[in-house]
């Protein structure tokens, strides 16, 4: 199991290297001159040129990329923000907890609604509850979440005046943004839970469990849900990652000082080091979430756990064989 995790972490390295390359090239081909952005339209051409030289913007592409990677690997240095002059990692770590909190809250909310709703829908297939839940879930998936944010502000802040429209200072400020991100997540989880449960519920062992005289509750929660859990975990994990992406818009709407807003502002200001650092950071978070999801599979399903173990055992056996071969 540990071997599996270590292997997966090592496999993240080339992917993340690729991510930095992709995003670095994209920022490279972007139009607009960061030096001119920093100094303003009125600056002298010579000053701009001097700053370009100082920031290394005149170096060829590969030199710049290699320098960037060298900085990350040797010093953990993601560069300096063109706008504030602070280090990019500091800026990101300042904003990160807010975005994370928002993502966690919205996923918790969505799971709390989505999984029970999905289970009830599946066990009472084609009932009024099921039909209603499915229509609502489809509406939830179809709503653009930036628009939903605006409507929530309109209703709860402008008309009812019970919740604050912007900022992020305490629990009462968390409600609207968390609901905004959570709605479509809840809808997706409901749909997935329902279809996954339906797959399981018609299987023979569920009939056996019922025939054994187990109560319906035990049959559903112990026997059915446990086997339906894998696709649900995948969805929750994916949605968590999407929540991080969705935070970009939601944070802009509610003026929340998180990573998403930082990214949007930085893209607009051509503040490339922050954009590169931010994308890298989100990609790392994304990969870790995927890894956690894969590890959770092992806990949900012993068959998968043994698969992971046998993978590493096979490896171990082949390496010992190699060693034996070398010794011989």
């Amino acid at each position, binding site marked *: 199991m540990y071997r599996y995790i270590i292997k997966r972490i090592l496999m993240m390295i080339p*992917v993340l290297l*690729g991510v930095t390359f992709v995003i670095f090239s994209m920022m490279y081909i*972007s139009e607009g001159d960061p030096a001119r952005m920093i100094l303003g339209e009125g600056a002298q051409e010579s000053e701009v040129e001097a700053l370009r030289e100082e920031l290394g913007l005149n170096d060829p592409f590969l030199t710049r990329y290699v320098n960037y990677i060298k900085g990350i690997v040797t010093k953990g240095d993601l560069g300096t923000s063109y706008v504030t002059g602070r280090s990019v990692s500091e800026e990101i770590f300042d904003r990160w907890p807010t975005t994370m909190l928002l993502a966690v809250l919205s996923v918790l909310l969505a799971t709390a609604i989505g999984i029970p709703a999905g289970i009830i829908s599946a066990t009472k297939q084609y009932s009024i509850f099921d039909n209603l839940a499915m229509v609502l879930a*489809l509406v939830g998936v179809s709503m653009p979440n930036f628009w939903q944010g605006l409507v929530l502000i309109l209703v709860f802040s402008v008309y009812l005046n019970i919740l604050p429209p912007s900022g992020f200072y305490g629990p009462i400020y968390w409600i609207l943004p968390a609901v905004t991100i959570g709605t479509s997540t809840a809808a997706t989880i409901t749909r997935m839970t329902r279809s996954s449960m339906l797959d399981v519920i018609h299987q023979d062992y569920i009939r056996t469990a019922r025939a054994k005289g187990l109560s319906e509750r035990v049959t559903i929660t112990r026997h059915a849900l446990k086997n339906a859990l894998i696709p649900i975990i995948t969805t929750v994990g994916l949605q968590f990652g999407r929540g991080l992406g969705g935070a970009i*818009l939601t944070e802009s709407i509610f003026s929340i000082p998180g990573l998403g807003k930082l990214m949007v502002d930085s893209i607009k200001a051509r503040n490339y080091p922050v954009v590169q650092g931010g994308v890298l950071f*989100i990609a790392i978070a994304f990969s870790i979430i995927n890894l956690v999801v894969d590890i959770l599979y092992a806990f949900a399903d012993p068959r998968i756990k043994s698969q992971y173990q046998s993978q590493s055992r096979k490896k171990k056996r082949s390496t010992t064989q190699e060693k034996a071969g070398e010794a011989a």
Partner: protein
Amino acid sequence: MTELSMQKRRSSRRREFWLRLCRNKAALIGMVILSVLIITAVFAPIIAPYHYDEQNYQITNQLPSLAHPLGTDNCGRDILSRLIYGSRVSLQIGFIAVGIGAAVGGLLGAVAAFYGKAVDNIIMRCIDIVLAIPSTLLAISISAALGPGLTNAMIAIGIGSAPNYARIVRASVLTVKEQEFVEAARCVGASDAYIILREILPNALSPIIVQATLGVASAILSAAALSFIGLGIQPPSPEWGAMLSAGRVYIRDFWPIVTFPGVAIMITIFALNLFGDGLRDVLDPKLRR
């Protein structure tokens, strides 16, 4: 088998598909709404009561009335007319972006699955890299690199969605590739390109169609999101996301301006999702009884 009986079989299969699709209530509702939207988009100049850019500063921010069924915006433009014209932009983005994504991704996926080994490994690892970046963020970064505008938004969204198609096409090509008719085509000396495009892809098409239908929905959402943060289609073009973005400032005083464009987006996405779900039920052999 003779050519005639082949044709007969093909047409009866098509008829069966339509029958099953029409029996699926969700798909039918989705199809009807979509048809209405497409007709609206095509005949926008005839249907819309005003031109989308017709300003009248005497009647700014008006509530819905007989003359302006959905009210007017901050420049005195008729919101309904702008929404009608906007359907052209949104549907165009949706379909073209999906076309780009499916073509690029589909080709990569098919090539990866067909040649296997090193080719497969290289292509799929590159796709892993793109998949490690959330798609919203990727689309935002690409359009930041290319600059705002309709074409660039379509490219950004298309490329952003390509990895999904690559994976789906790869998976379905892998299952189709081993079947006998592929071997037969190879025996009669067909080229690789012919086998991929004419033999394998048509047989691996149904998951791609389903993904593409649902993909149009997410492309429209992404386009609206891009416009909303000012990186997509620029005003005065009546794109729905751009309308929301422009109306945001007036949220405290005037509700129609932030309500109706969102409703338009929602109805479109809802219809596409209904249709896509229905299509999946009809095309997915696992669900067939």
